[in-house]
């Protein structure tokens, strides 16, 4: 299996506080990787250091054999990103945001098809501001898919989506996965992780306390589902009882 994302020894501290330390990661082509961890565990920092929007203190990152800082232009022709908070202008309409983003790529996907696929076609003339939380989230996934990417990073994938919308996003991602797309996502929803991810890593205080498949995570814990296993790994399972 080819390696699409390779991270070694990635560390970052802010003002002397280590946010992530010595992160090691390897994600194969066509795999879906899930980054788990509580808020503040360092998920966003990990993603930003991998993408090069933050400069890591140490370590190296290779995506599709490219360096995310040195080969930025070449890399982001093939990599789509959805940040936790995606920025857009107040007065921009859905189709304008799509068109303005699509024009940045040499070979962009057809945004009209993507809007249809993510059930946003009816909303193409609406202001992005007026979309519901779930519609916005779907739009940002559309933007991440606009470069027709080989790899896509989705931070907090389905936060704010209702059950039906989440399922439809999962379905779309599974279709893309079958076409060979490598997906790096972070999520708080274990059901979603179980459905989508081939491998996961659990981040606690800036370190990976588990990396492996969902099944391995469950087997290593005394529980029989991922949610319980996750809480067991992060040491958060007893807080409710106390």
């Amino acid at each position, binding site marked *: 299996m080819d390696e699409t994302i390779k991270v070694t020894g990635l560390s970052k501290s802010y003002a002397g506080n280590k946010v992530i330390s010595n992160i090691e990661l390897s994600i194969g082509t066509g795999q879906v990787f899930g980054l788990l961890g509580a808020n503040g565990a360092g998920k966003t920092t990990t993603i930003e250091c991998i993408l090069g929007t933050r400069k890591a203190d140490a370590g190296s990152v290779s995506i599709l054999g490219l360096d995310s800082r040195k080969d930025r232009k070449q890399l*982001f*022709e093939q990599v789509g990103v959805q940040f936790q908070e995606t*920025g857009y202008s107040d*007065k*921009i309409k859905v189709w*304008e945001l799509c*068109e303005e983003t699509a*024009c940045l790529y040499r070979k962009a996907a057809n945004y009209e098809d993507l809007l249809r696929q993510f059930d946003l076609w009816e909303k193409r003339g609406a202001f992005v501001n007026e979309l519901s939380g779930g519609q916005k989230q779907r739009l940002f996934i559309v933007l991440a898919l606009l*470069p027709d990417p080989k790899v896509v990073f989705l931070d907090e994938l389905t936060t704010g989506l209702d059950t039906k919308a989440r399922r439809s996003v999962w379905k779309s991602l599974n279709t893309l996965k079958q076409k060979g797309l490598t997906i790096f996502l972070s999520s708080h929803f274990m059901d979603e992780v179980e459905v989508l991810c081939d491998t996961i890593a659990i981040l606690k205080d800036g370190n990976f306390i588990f990396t492996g498949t969902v099944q391995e995570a469950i087997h290593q814990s005394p529980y029989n589902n991922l949610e319980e296993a996750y809480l067991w790994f992060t040491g958060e399972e007893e807080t409710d009882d106390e």
Partner: protein
Amino acid sequence: MNKYVTMLKTEIKLSFRGMDMVIFALCLPVVVVVLLGIIYGNQPAFEGASYSFLEQSFGAISTISICAGGVMGLPLVISDYRQKKILKRYKVTPTSPILLLTVQVSIYAIYSLLSLILVYLVGSLFFCVRLPGSVGIFLASYLLVMLSTFSIGMMVGGVAPNMKVASIVASILYFPMLIFSGATLPYEVMPTALQRIADILPLTQGIKLLKATSLGLPIEVAWLPLVVMVALIIICGGIAVRFFKWE
């Protein structure tokens, strides 16, 4: 389509939807030229002057839009786009946020030029404004004043930590410049004491340069404004480039 053109088209639309620039950069200068035209008509600038008061004011009025775009529009849009993390989003695309900034500068340059044309048309059609100066030299000076004012805006937008600070600084720069540099209230009608204060404002110097070039006055009068304009571009532009914050 070329990405610059596509973005320019979209961002112009967004700017028009905002209306602020349409009012402050396009309508306001026309209102001022009409008012001065009605008040002063064809009166000469002073006893025995070869040009009218309004002709003398043309250079000043033409900077209202530069002032609105450069000191108000540009810093606000830059800090807004940074605060909304739009600049950051461009960092994970094959282009850089610099493209977006270039597009914004182009938009405010377009507003300024449109306003210049509007003011000239209104002045020449309704109030017989005739400008003997060389068009080429005037446009070159106009470009220089525009660049230096825009560099102030780039500095404020690039360095201000957030939208709130940017908007306070922009207001502090914009309103005194608009009123006391002679852009709206003619420099010539100010009392001498006020003229002294006005002379400190960089735009006052820019306006002197534009007056000299539009009226075709000897260029020796223009060396101080020239130095001020170029110094502004170097200092403010330098600070903007050196300390610019993308996030």
